[in-house]
């Protein structure tokens, strides 16, 4: 009995592999997995909103690709790489997942990208920050969509330095993401001739950051930069206002802040803060119309991560259509050939290392008097072309772009 079912299993898996290699769709459908943080610290940055964005992309595409249905899987990875990798394997092995998107949190992103590379499944990261995703650890089927630590460090700091901010104090979250952001920012500041007068690493997460802010205050640096994320950034900004950092003449820079963070901080405390983003709902008619539809479904404006999930899903489906198959490597190659063009990213192209190169935006948080509504939070300071914002793929160390 056992032997029989084993044989059947072998036969079945040969058939499945055979199907994947041939033209057409494995399992006669395209399966998109949305693997995100549904309950933890990044649940507002990505989370349920990411699922909504992917559903919108599928609906806007027409619900079918190559005349076959599109299925969406969703799961909560709890920001744990081991859990995420297990879910990804299960999806690929037993549920026929053809692509996995979102993947917020750097450790999760790196882990699942590894699985995708090994199994030839397209992984599209729109949530995690680490630039390592498109460096040594890149794979033939991996993509990084909207931002990374390199672009965060190359959009805001140069503009602040140009405005006379030539001495910096960096407050860093003491884990991989914070370290990598601090390193990228320090390198840029060095190139620009600005001085980093001090830095401090705080435990992650920290509810009370006043002690570190006080150290920044007494350092006399003109600019205080926050290399942290989410709740830590929210509390840093609130408490910096409380302790009069900005009132005392220092400039506060959040190297990574999402729309949901600024919404939570509020304009009263957040005003004047500079933010780097790959998407903002109120940029032009296209972004407004997409975001309005998103808002009607979800009740919140999309963060850049959620918007990126929409863009990435659409682009993936277009590539499947063009390639005539859902075979990972074929689709990935097609994705890199085609320009990224949709309501979120109007004019993007994909480098061989999987990096989507597109315009980044330097935003300033509005004063309460300038804002006309709950979500009217940013004004555009500068558009930074993709080639300037993102790392030169040839220098990334990814074997695919050598």
């Amino acid at each position, binding site marked *: 009995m056992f032997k029989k079912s084993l044989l059947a299993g072998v036969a079945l898996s040969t058939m499945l592999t055979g199907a994947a290699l041939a033209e057409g769709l494995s399992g006669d459908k395209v399966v998109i997995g949305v693997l995100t943080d549904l*309950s*933890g*610290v*990044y*649940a*507002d940055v990505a*989370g349920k909103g990411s699922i909504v964005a992917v559903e919108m992309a599928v609906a806007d595409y027409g619900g079918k690709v190559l005349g076959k249905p599109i299925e969406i899987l969703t799961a909560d990875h709890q920001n744990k790489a081991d859990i995420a990798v297990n879910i990804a394997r299960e999806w690929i092995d037993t549920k026929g997942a053809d692509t996995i998107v979102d993947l917020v949190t750097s450790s999760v992103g790196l882990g699942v990208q590894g699985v995708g590379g090994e199994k030839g499944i397209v992984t599209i990261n729109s949530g995690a920050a680490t630039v390592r995703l498109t460096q040594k650890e890149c794979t033939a089927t991996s993509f990084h969509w909207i931002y990374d630590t390199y672009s965060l460090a190359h959009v805001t700091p140069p503009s602040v330095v140009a405005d006379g901010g030539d001495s910096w104090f960096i407050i860093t979250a*003491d884990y991989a993401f914070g370290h990598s952001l601090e390193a990228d920012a320090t390198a840029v500041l060095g190139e620009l001739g600005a001085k980093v007068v001090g830095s*401090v*690493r*705080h*435990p992650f*997460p*920290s*509810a*009370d950051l*006043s*002690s*570190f802010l*006080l*150290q920044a*205050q*007494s350092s006399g640096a003109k600019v205080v930069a926050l290399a942290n994320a*989410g*709740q830590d950034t*929210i*509390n840093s900004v*609130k*408490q910096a206002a*409380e*302790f*009069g950092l900005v009132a*005392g003449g220092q400039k506060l820079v959040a190297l990574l802040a999402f729309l*949901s*963070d600024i*919404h*939570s*901080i*509020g304009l*009263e*405390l957040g005003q004047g803060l500079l933010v780097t983003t790959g998407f903002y709902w109120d940029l032009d008619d296209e972004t407004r119309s997409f975001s309005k539809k998103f808002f009607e479904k979800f009740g919140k404006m999309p963060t850049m991560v959620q918007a990126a999930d929409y863009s990435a899903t659409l682009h993936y489906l277009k590539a499947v259509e063009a390639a005539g198959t859902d075979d990972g490597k074929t689709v990935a190659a097609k994705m890199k050939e085609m320009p990224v063009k949709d309501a979120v990213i109007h004019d993007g192209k994909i480098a061989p290392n999987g990096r989507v190169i597109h315009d980044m935006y330097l935003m300033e948080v509005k004063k309460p008097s300038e804002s006309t509504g709950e979500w009217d939070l940013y004004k555009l300071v500068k558009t930074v072309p993709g080639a300037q914002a993102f790392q030169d793929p040839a220098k990334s160390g990814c074997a695919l772009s050598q």
Partner: protein
Amino acid sequence: MFELLGIPPQALFGQLLLGLINGSFYALLSLGLAVIFGMLNVINFAHGALYMVGAFVAWYLLQYAGIGYWGALIITPVVVGILGLVIEKTMLRHLYKLDHLYGLLLTFGLALILEGGFKYQYGVSGQSYPVPAALNGGTNLGFMFLPFYRGWVVALSIVVCVATWYAIEKTRLGSYLRAATENPKLVQAFGINVPVMITMTYGTGVALAGLAGVMAAPIYSVNPLMGSNLIIVVFAVVVIGGMGSIFGAVASGYLLGLMEGLTKVFLPEASNIVVFLIMVVVLLLRPAGLFGRER
């Protein structure tokens, strides 16, 4: 200008004062925990969640009823206290006969449910709660800028801690309570309604957590995770002070706030573990805690 251990004294005083402010929260929360453990022998794991509920009640009052900070300071502890009464009456009460662990498990489950519910409703980014207008701004003390609101937090928490300690150690009601803890049957035989007293004690203990929640709302963002971030440290504080010792909980709350403040200057990366290191050392040298008695 002289320096102390390589740090200018101004910076050091500033950090010590900040430590004292954080210590105020530790003290308020560990006070409630100590009261509940001392009188009921329940390890109230829901304390952090009820602190979070306190902050949310303050936010609701402002958002939907237009009641500001000062009103919330009175109303919130009452609301959270009543929630505590309900929890004690309907659930906790049935577990007194069993091992302590059951109370811990029940309250832990409650904490998860409360946090999950709020997370589902409000996400994790948190809500903004403004500092009350009367306490806006701050003053320059020479060595640091002290926001008025933080000064108020320290003052209020000292008053509340001293008042609670006085009520339990020095008043007639307090003596009934302590007697009921030692020998509930005998105290009941004297005509004192012990079950009601225990219910009220639990309500008061969690009301203190609610009060701390209101006080925290203007400083931290009001979010569902705020309690679970704090509760572990607060448990360590109670253990260091001596389980059940009111004075110990308060004193070690302030003391550990100060120690943490110092660590943030000398070795910032270690500031979230210093409390636990101290706990290990204290447990090795004095298993009953700094101010606890062996039972």
